């Protein structure tokens, strides 16, 4: 039996919106520590990993490990019926056929209830080790999004080059080339605009911009985004959720010929 109450239905909405353009079906794995999700895109070059911890819900109850196989398009449709400020309650039995969603409006006394049919999804779980990255950049999520969409106009791929001078996002395409360079930057009164760069060694990697733009759909979740790079390993883009919950995206670098 799963019962999880979320104060703002919008929080879940944003998570689902962030993932639904990357994967179509995925399992929400529920256990007593919270809701977890791991899924890859169809090409298996990107991976999304979400951990929605139990403390983000009030209350949270999960007696047994349950996998909720959900089609994200369908879940989006159901969540669209929720107001942003509604209180959302997720309920499922131990071996569920469907997921029960209740939206309670706090202002008016309106209760809507939906049942979403679940699916059996064969999914392989990958073990993701804790990695010490060569470069970790923390910046405003809006800034990252802007860089990605701007460079998208120039090319399909971007080279991210982190050195002691700063971080350079460079795109080289048919119509020309362009680049954005960020330097470490602190604002005392507006901390969310800070740009922190931690570097242990210089890194230069190339990534598909289409995927990065896709990851940026998670921008509403958090004002800050953490980008971690190391040679020969996937890029990590992390958006923080309430508390220590997170939404992480991994993307394989492009190796060899760059168009």
């Amino acid at each position, binding site marked *: 039996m799963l019962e999880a109450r979320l104060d703002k239905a919008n929080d879940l909405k944003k998570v689902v919106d962030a993932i639904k353009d990357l994967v179509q079906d995925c399992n929400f794995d529920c256990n007593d520590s919270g809701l977890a999700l791991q899924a890859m895109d169809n090409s298996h070059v990107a991976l999304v990993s979400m951990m929605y911890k139990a403390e983000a819900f009030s209350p949270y109850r999960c007696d047994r490990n349950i996998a909720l*196989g959900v089609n*994200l*398009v369908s879940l989006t449709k159901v969540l669209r019926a929720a107001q942003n400020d509604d209180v959302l309650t997720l309920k499922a039995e131990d071996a569920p*056929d469907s997921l029960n969603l209740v939206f309670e409006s706090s202002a008016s006394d309106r209760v809507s209830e939906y049942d979403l*049919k679940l*699916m*059996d999804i064969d999914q392989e779980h*990958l073990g993701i080790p804790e990695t010490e990255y060569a470069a970790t950049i923390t910046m405003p999520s809006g800034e990252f999004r802007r860089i990605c969409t701007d460079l998208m106009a120039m090319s*399909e791929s971007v080279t991210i080059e982190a050195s002691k001078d700063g971080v350079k996002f460079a795109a080289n395409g048919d119509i020309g080339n362009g680049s954005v360079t960020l330097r470490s930057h602190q604002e005392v009164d507006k901390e969310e605009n800070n740009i922190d760069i931690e570097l242990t060694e210089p890194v230069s990697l190339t990534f*598909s911009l289409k995927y990065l733009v896709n990851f940026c759909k998670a921008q509403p979740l958090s004002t800050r985004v953490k980008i971690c790079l190391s040679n020969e390993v996937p890029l990590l883009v992390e958006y923080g959720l309430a508390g220590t919950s997170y939404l992480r995206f991994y993307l394989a670098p492009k190796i060899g010929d760059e168009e």
Partner: protein
Amino acid sequence: MARTRSKGGATTTTKSASKSQSSAGTESRYTLPDESPNPPKIFILPRKATPEARVVSLLNPRYGKPTRYLVCPSTGVYEFTRIAAPKSTPRSWLIEHSTSSSTTTSNSELPSASQSEEKDKETTTTEKGQDEDEFGAYITKGAELFVATPVDPVFLVLPALSSSSAEEGGASNKKKKLFLSSDDHFDNLARGGQDALSPHLGEVLRWGNIRALFESRMAVVCDTVDAGDESMYRLSEEKLLAVLLDKARSMSTTSLPPSMEEKFVAKALEAPVLSVKRETPAAAPQASTETLASQSAVSTPKVENSESQSSVSSADTTSTTVSDASTAATSVAAAEEEAANSEAFELKPAIVASPEVISLQRLRTALSFILSSYVAPAQAARLREQLGARAELQAEFGPLDDYLGRVAALRQEAVAARSMADYSRKRVLDDEELAERAEKKRRKDEDDKRKKAGLSRGVKTLGKVNTSGMKKMSDFFKKK
């Protein structure tokens, strides 16, 4: 593809639908009576068999296993041939035991020597009232017909004659085989070689003139010596060969049974048509393998016979099946069809077999048939050797061998020509395949549609992204 899990009210789930169907189907208004452990069987018995004829187990000369024969004290021994519908088209008998229909054939009651349950046959007589009570109208799922046909007792005694000769021949090379009295031979036979016994032989020999019949037939293939008032016998393979050749000749004077004629005579002698490129050569590679088979050791009939024998051993209560006519019939039916097809296009074969060649091929086929169904494999091999060694026989078969040699060469040419021209041939689809293909396409479309419905625009566009040079996630992260 992932499917919806829910059961209640789901139109897409097939599970719930089938469940409700099966629950409805389990309860039938009619209950069937239990299957009889000894279902009736249908026999066609010869008119001339006397009422004293019995079904007995004797050793099968080919396989050395007990097999059922019908032995009539006055008219001789009959073997059973099982005629059954092929497994692909199952049939049943509806057997009605009505007194009025009992006059169809004037056959007499015939209790089997071993099991009285096996006495049902095509005809019943009025005094068999208890059978009627027992069976009434009966439907049997094994639509088999057992036809009793006369068999030369010489084949039945052959294992005894040859086994003693084989033992001696092996022990002291080329040592003269011993003359033995008929009693000794029959003892040999009753022991039945290794473990299998010929259970009823001793009993059978005491009936009427069966013993005299066996002895007289034995004399035909043996050298005999009179020792006092007793005759001693020793197998003479030359005599045996002569007897077999005689039998084969009489079998082949009129044409062989149509199925055999088609498969082993017509097919084997058929020369490919070289001038026509279409269709006809299609049968050629097949036919060539068939000739090879029939030429070398007649492997095809051998296979059929071993099949029939396995059915005998598995169902010991059923009566004998010596040669499984049904398998041959079906396989040949297919061959006939094929031949008919190819005939439509056939213009002129490269060479045509002369009547002499045809009759020789018939003779050879008949002989192989006899050797492979009535003579033990070891003995058959020996006889074949002798057959090859006899110069006058070689000469006799000369024209046939020449002809077959030419046909084989022509076929090789045809196959070579066909493989050259093969690329231009397009296979024409028949209706069934078309329907299957359409069905597959429909299902695929449906699947695709369902998949698309659950696909967001973002996922769709991501699918078009060029991911060359990007490794899979599983290359970086190990599976849990």
